[in-house]
């Protein structure tokens, strides 16, 4: 059993408390910066959502690396997780190519997405 002992990595207590503290600080930061208007990035998207997603990604990376032990683990687990994120990117990316540029091919009209909703019967 002694040789198995070294395979179990015990993360030091200060790492967990430090990462937890960093996550709480970043939560406060993301709420605080949401009140600031960063303007628009060359007409594509508001900068606020990009800032919010960068902070959320930093938090997610901290959780994955330290709480989920990916930094200490066999690299195969990291590969599985990164594969999931890559395919999520393919999924959302290709869908956006379709839905954002569809108006270039077909004529689209703006209107209520579901006119049967009760809210439209009241008007």
């Amino acid at each position, binding site marked *: 059993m002694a040789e198995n002992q070294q395979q179990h990595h015990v993360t030091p*207590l200060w790492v967990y408390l430090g990462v937890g503290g960093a996550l*709480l600080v970043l939560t406060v930061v993301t709420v605080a910066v949401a009140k600031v208007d960063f303007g628009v990035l060359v007409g594509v998207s508001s900068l606020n959502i990009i800032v*919010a997603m960068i*902070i*959320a990604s930093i938090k*997610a990376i901290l959780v994955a690396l330290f709480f989920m032990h990916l930094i200490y683990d066999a690299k*195969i687990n990291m590969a599985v997780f990164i594969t999931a994120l890559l395919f*999520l990117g393919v999924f959302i990316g290709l869908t956006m190519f379709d839905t954002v540029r569809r108006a270039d091919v077909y004529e689209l009209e703006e209107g209520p997405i*579901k006119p049967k909703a*009760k809210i439209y019967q009241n008007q």
Partner: protein
Amino acid sequence: MATTSTHSAHPDYLQHHFSDPQQQQEAAKLGMWIFLLTEVLLFGGLFCAYVIYRSWDPQLFINANKELSVPLGALNTIVLITSSVTMALAIRCVQLNKSKQSAAYLIATLAFAAVFLVVKYFEYSHKIHLGQLPGQFYTYTGIEGNNPHIFFSVYFMMTGLHGLHVLGGMGAIGWVLWKTVKRQLHSEYYTPMENVGLYWHLVDMIWIFLFPLLYLIG
């Protein structure tokens, strides 16, 4: 059979089809990560729906999102992050054979999960009371602009699926708490708790994205 050295030597938590505990643990963990991959893609469908509707009408999301309570959302974020810390500490304690402390941390994790769901209950009942419901059930008239019900469809589906995962996670944590109290988990074998921890951290990670996407876009 029973007299062969390999069989008489193996501990009771080691299944016959694994050569040693380390191989068993690594196989179980890889399987858990592949399950988490399917979870990422399950929520991915809803994130994709969010991105589509938001790209069609960004103003709809900005108008409707003001109805959500940022303090309650932030409170739930802090509660869930804290529960992730206690979950990680529970695993650390079982690695060090501190079963009682480990059980205490698991109970704390369960308590934080319950607080999360209670806060969610108050948010939901407030919205149901106002008629801020998905799709055709939407009756609220206090939001400017077209299609505000789309935001609440996205909101209820994303937070609803996440809430179900919190509930399922509580069941899983209860199960490893039972195993810990029964002294079935210890420094040589704690794979069930480790895998439940991975699941719990993923649920936390998904909320880390849901919170800014739903509450902080005004």
